[in-house]
């Protein structure tokens, strides 16, 4: 009896063992129900646009806007940046978001769209990539470019010289322009958050970026921008062509500045006194668009800014204004490139070329465009709490403004400085561009910046931001072999970028 029993048991176990190894279905539960392995190209586009807009208008504007003294935070990181105290780990998140977010998704979009034969998406991806690389290289200098976003081949990436990056950006823009016009692009719809499928506008945007990039080389290749203009490229022609990233008045969809100043509860930001004083002196119609009147306390309803680097606490919003509704409303858009900017560049180029008439026309177009833009975004809106209403800007207001001694082109002794000053005011929407201008144009032709209190750089304005700690830790060898590992508080003020010929 027992032998039979043992036999039965052995066969039972053999059966079980067999069952075990052949039960592949049993183990086939490893496909994630939470994610997808493939997505349609149309769904990849919105996050690329949104992420780029959020970080350009949010964190990157916070860093550079503090350097250029648009902002002067009173506590925490905004104060730290106002004191020019930039540490390697400060920009880790932003650097990572562009490379592993925007650029990686753009690479995926390009790849997918090539397979589905939709060149418009390929072109859009290229243009957005170019914009991202331009933003990064103007802040950091040499950056990974040719080996980036290719994890199959490169697990650490070499740093490309800025000159090579610029050449790559121009080439990318040229390819983008070609691709967005390759077919009728009828498949691009409202997933294109910027232009809703209007390829003509993408071409204008790309050309504006190209003009911007070439103008950055004014110290290296003084004629590049002018040569480009003489080819009569299709550029932005009105505010309707502006490259704007939309945000919406709903949770997890708000404008980044609004989130920082009003939703996060941090209460540590403030606008800068020097910028407020500048606009006050000019009687600028954008005053209430740019600055929110103080909400509480004795100064309620008035506008005041903080002196850069000063540590007076204002968590109660009793001392200093915050950024105004035109840039920080819950659904105020982010500006990636604008018609006003295009005209300012043309004005500068024409001014240098000695063409005063063209310069004046471009200058006046630019100022008008900026005033009109803001009026369209927030004209007539009311500030919550104080109830102060933002007056719309009429054509007469613009004419009056342009005629002022302090604003008029003809009345200016130093025309270039006049152009750069108005451009500085308009670039409140793109502080990183203002920083490029400041480094490029130099003190003589640019509005003055003050020495921030308690600054960490011995009164020197930074020429770049230090490379992120992530790069030092994870890509250190390439960093060392390329631009070098940044020395805290030193490199950012002593090592200028390639186009910033000293």
């Amino acid at each position, binding site marked *: 009896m027992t032998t039979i029993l043992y036999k039965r048991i052995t066969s039972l176990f053999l059966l079980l063992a067999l069952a075990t190894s052949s039960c592949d279905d049993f183990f086939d539960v490893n496909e994630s129900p939470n994610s997808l392995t493939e997505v349609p190209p149309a769904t990849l586009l919105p996050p690329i646009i949104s992420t780029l807009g959020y970080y350009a208008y949010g964190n990157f504007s916070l860093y550079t806007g503090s350097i250029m003294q648009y902002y002067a935070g009173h506590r925490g990181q905004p104060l730290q940046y106002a004191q020019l105290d930039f540490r390697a780990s400060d920009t880790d998140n932003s650097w990572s978001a562009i490379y592993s*977010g925007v650029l990686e998704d753009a690479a995926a979009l390009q790849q997918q769209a090539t397979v589905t034969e939709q060149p418009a998406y390929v072109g859009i991806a290229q243009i957005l990539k170019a914009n991202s690389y331009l933003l990064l290289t103007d802040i950091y200098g040499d950056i990974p470019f040719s080996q980036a976003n290719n994890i199959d081949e490169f697990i650490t990436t070499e740093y490309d010289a800025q000159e090579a990056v610029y050449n790559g950006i121009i080439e990318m823009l040229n390819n983008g322009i070609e691709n967005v016009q390759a077919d009728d692009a009828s498949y691009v719809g409202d997933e294109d958050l910027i232009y809703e499928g209007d390829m003509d506008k993408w071409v204008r945007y790309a050309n504006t970026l190209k003009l911007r990039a070439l103008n950055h080389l004014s110290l290296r290749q003084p004629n590049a921008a002018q040569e480009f203009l003489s080819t009569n490229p299709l550029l932005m022609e009105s505010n309707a062509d502006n490259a704007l990233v939309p945000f919406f008045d709903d949770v997890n969809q708000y404008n980044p500045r609004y989130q920082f100043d009003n939703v996060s509860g941090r209460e540590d930001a403030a606008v800068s006194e020097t910028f407020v004083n500048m606009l006050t002196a000019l009687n600028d119609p954008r005053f209430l668009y740019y600055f929110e009147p103080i909400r509480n306390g004795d100064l309620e309803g008035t506008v005041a800014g903080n002196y850069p680097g000063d540590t007076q606490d204002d968590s109660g919003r009793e001392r200093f204004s915050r950024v105004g509704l035109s840039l920080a409303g819950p659904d105020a858009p982010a500006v990636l490139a604008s018609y006003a900017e295009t005209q300012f560049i043309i004005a500068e180029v024409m001014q240098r070329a000695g063409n005063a008439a063209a310069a004046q026309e471009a200058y006046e177009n630019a100022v008008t465009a900026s005033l009109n833009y803001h009026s369209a975004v927030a004209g007539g809106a009311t500030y919550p709490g104080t109830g102060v209403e933002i007056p719309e800007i009429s054509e007469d207001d613009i004419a009056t403004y342009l005629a002022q001694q302090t604003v008029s082109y003809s009345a200016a002794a130093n025309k270039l400085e006049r152009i750069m000053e108005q451009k500085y005011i308009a670039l409140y929407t793109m502080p990183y561009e203002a920083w490029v201008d400041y480094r490029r144009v130099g003190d003589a032709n640019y509005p003055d910046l003050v020495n921030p209190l308690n600054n960490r750089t011995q009164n020197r304005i930074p020429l770049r931001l230090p490379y992120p700690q992530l790069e030092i830790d994870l890509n250190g060898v390439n960093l060392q072999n390329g631009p070098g590992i940044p020395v805290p508080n030193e490199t950012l003020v002593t090592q200028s970028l390639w186009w910033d010929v000293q």
Partner: protein
Amino acid sequence: MLLGLITSAWAQRTVSGKVTADGEGLPGVAVRIKGTSQGTVTDMDGNYRLEVPGNNTVITFTFIGYADKEVTVGNRSVVDVVLSEDVETLSEVVVTAVGIEREQKALGYSVGSVSGEAISESRSTNVVNALSGKVAGVQVTSSGGGVGQGARVTLRGARSLTGNNEPLFVVDGIIISNANDGNSASTNVTGVAQPNRAADINPEDIESISVLKGPAAAALYGIRAANGAIIITTKTGRGAAKRGELDIDFTSTYMVDEPLRLPDYQNTYAQGSQDFVYSNGTSRSFGPRIEGQMHTNVLGQEVPMRVYDPRSQFLQTGSTAINNLSFAGGDEKSNFYLSLGAQNQESYLPGNYFDRYTARINAERRTERFTAGINLNYIHSGGNTPFLGQSGSNPIFSLFHTPVSYDLAGYGYQREDGSQINFRGGSFDNPFWSANNTYYKNANDRVIGAVNLGYSFNDNLRLDYRLNTDVMNEESKSFYEVGTGGWQNGRIAYDDLRRQEINSDLILGYDNNFGGDVFSFNGLLGWNVNQRTYSYEGIAGTNFVVPGFENIDNTSSKEVPVETDERRRLMGVYGQVDLGYKNYLFLTLTGRNDWSSTLPVEERSFFYPSASLAFAFTDAFDFGGSAFNFGKLRLSAARTGNDAAPYSLSPLFSAAAFSDGFTDGIAFPVNGVPGYSANDILGNPNIKPETVTNYEAGVDLRFLDSRVTLDATYFYTKSTDLIFPVDITPTTGYTNYLANAGQLDSKGLEVALGLNPIRTSDFRWDVSLVWSRIRTEVVEIIEGVDQIYLGGFSGDPSIQAQVGQRYGIIRGTSYQRDPNGNILVDSDPTSTTYGFPLIGGTESLGHVEPDWTGGLRNSLNFKGIELDFLFDFRKGGYIWSGTSELLQFYGVAAVTEDRENPVIIDGVKNVGGSENPNYVPNDIAIFRRANYWDQVSNITEANVYENNWLKLRELNLSYSLPSSLFANRFGFVRGVKISLTGRNLALWTNVPDIDPEGSAFGTGNGQGASRFDLPSSRSVGGSIRVQF
């Protein structure tokens, strides 16, 4: 020939007798004829009858826990025997893997045992905390003193770089979940206090705990055994059943709780951010001296300045009440254990509480061949648990830096218009606001159950089957009122979580002795099937419409809902062979083959063997004598491993959402437009399982009649092919990729020393010391990568694993130093930091792992009075006190008191240039005011301390009333025990301000940093136990 026949006929006769111990008949004693397998078993009264062949027959009497006895029959027909308790020659039984009971003597690996009584007397609300200091090699780290807050336990250091390093928890053969949800994935900087789920087990139900410290011990669990296992056995009622009685047990405990330690504060200076100038609304206390001067307070009133104590204004006395009622009984064929338990804790933080209710039934019925049993445990727990860490709703964060000039209780927390009154702005709330206007309420229902069936074919062959499940459902609701710092428009969120584990084990076992009693053989073959599922849904809304209505319908904005599901399956076939030779040499061999659904098809199956040898050399060579009465040598080697997390194999896209560290960011769909983005972690379709190889050698020695016991073990564990998401530069397009790489080596020594200096009939004194020293080294990560991030803040400090260093390094900003290591001070007279230490670069500031840990327990017993106390200690390793750093920055810490006397920082200054530095001793006199503490708070190194501490962990004084008291009128009362009890009574440490046992990062791998953790609790109280 006739004579021979007559002789043998005469010889074959019946012998009977009674076996007693302690004056009582002992049932179940094995009575055997030595050298044969013939024998019988004593009955309920200890009587036996046995046929013996002749006068020279030797009868052996054996029973677990008692010394064996051999008696030659002679010409007696009645042989009575008295057995005496075995003096710790390791015949006691421990529960090993898969629920198998083995005699400790036969084990070739180290097992730590803790009795249920020791667990119960620790009065800990969490069984993991109760293990602290009792078993060598076990390191318990409590996350903090919040009610219901979890604790982390590791056995012998770390084995996985970023994966789970905590052991398996098994209760009555059921593998249960020890998840710590709410602190998501261990690297989160905010979260809520949530228990580790093993804490659901009612400590009163526990009969014993076996700690299987390494893979050798837990080899039968295969993949899940790499970190060892904690085997909990709950009460069965067999004791009462054997006595044929019904035992009723009632215990009630009540303790008051207070924070064990609060930081030291300065009581001189008022609120203000600019030296000696008073201002409202700032987070800092660098204002003027408090001298009764008039000032305008936050309410706009003109009042004189006074010194308050915000800490004692807010903190209250908490309490813990534990009540337990249990029934145990049965007869010779069955036994049962039924218990009901209630544990109610009120926190020292107002408004926070945590309750746990448990019900358990364990029952078993046996016939001659068949056994059927059930274990069923229902637990309901929940409460309103505190927010943690860097969340603005963590009341400790703002409470700890409330200026002493601020009347926290007097000013109130809410104005008539509903807005918040607070001493500071930003996203940190007034602690009273957090207590009254925010909450995290949760309710958890859990059922752990098993059905056990067994069939004995004969005396040797047995088939067992166990089907068990662990199902848990948790619902939580968090709420922040309009006006909360971090949620100005209010927020309400619901999280629903479900975990389920189903497990089936079929085991065939065979034991027999061969060659007389020379060889013993125990073998088993098992088949295991396992499935684990997890699902989570969350929804949240903000912007309340109607005040006071706490429902998601009342929100005008809904966040994008989240859904996550996970499922994994495992199948294993395992076997074990135990060979014993003459009861002093034992060899155990195991093998297990696992198939896991989380690995790719080609790598799905893997085999793990182990071997261990136990040699009781005193028995072998008959050393004997009482000076050295027992010695055993053990050796073992084992290989186990780990599989991957589910869904690790391919690159994936998910609904796009991002946030930038300052704000919540964007989550798609936006304005109705969907968006998908590539995940930042690149999956790997070629992933292999991890391999953990463990070698162990040890001795168990007994001296002086076991009055001195010494167990020592040396182990070496090598973990290779570790699966972890390697950090890579994001310029590759991904922040991490999943790889098999890296090697962790762990070496250590564990010692357990027991002393019994006094043992008389009235007085007994036992001392037990456990000590362990573990070194885990990161030998290798992957080519090109020198360190990976384990946890912490993403900047400063972060906890990393670095090649060539011990596992867990604190990396943060350091002091700038000269080539001789002296602190460098700013020598530029125009600088605002003139004379202050300079900030250096990011460096490694110390390893996290302790150098050694241990516990010392003393137990004194005089007649009915028992005094028990346990010290827990740790030396070495480092901790960063973020609490101290911030309290210094805010100017509330006692060290910031001296602001008006000039000091010279101990260091050097550079009087040369940057080309030709010339370092001379520092002579710059400075005042340590707002700017100074700002500078120092940017130097992480300034607040990294060696993590040494000694705690008086438990103290129990109890008195068992003499049975004579109730012998007459209350005969049904078996015993009454009254005790005074205390937990976490005293702390001695060099680390300032905090209890260094806390952790800012939950129970995950990123330990070594503490920043506004909830202070641990000191509990004092009493309990009474009545047994019927």
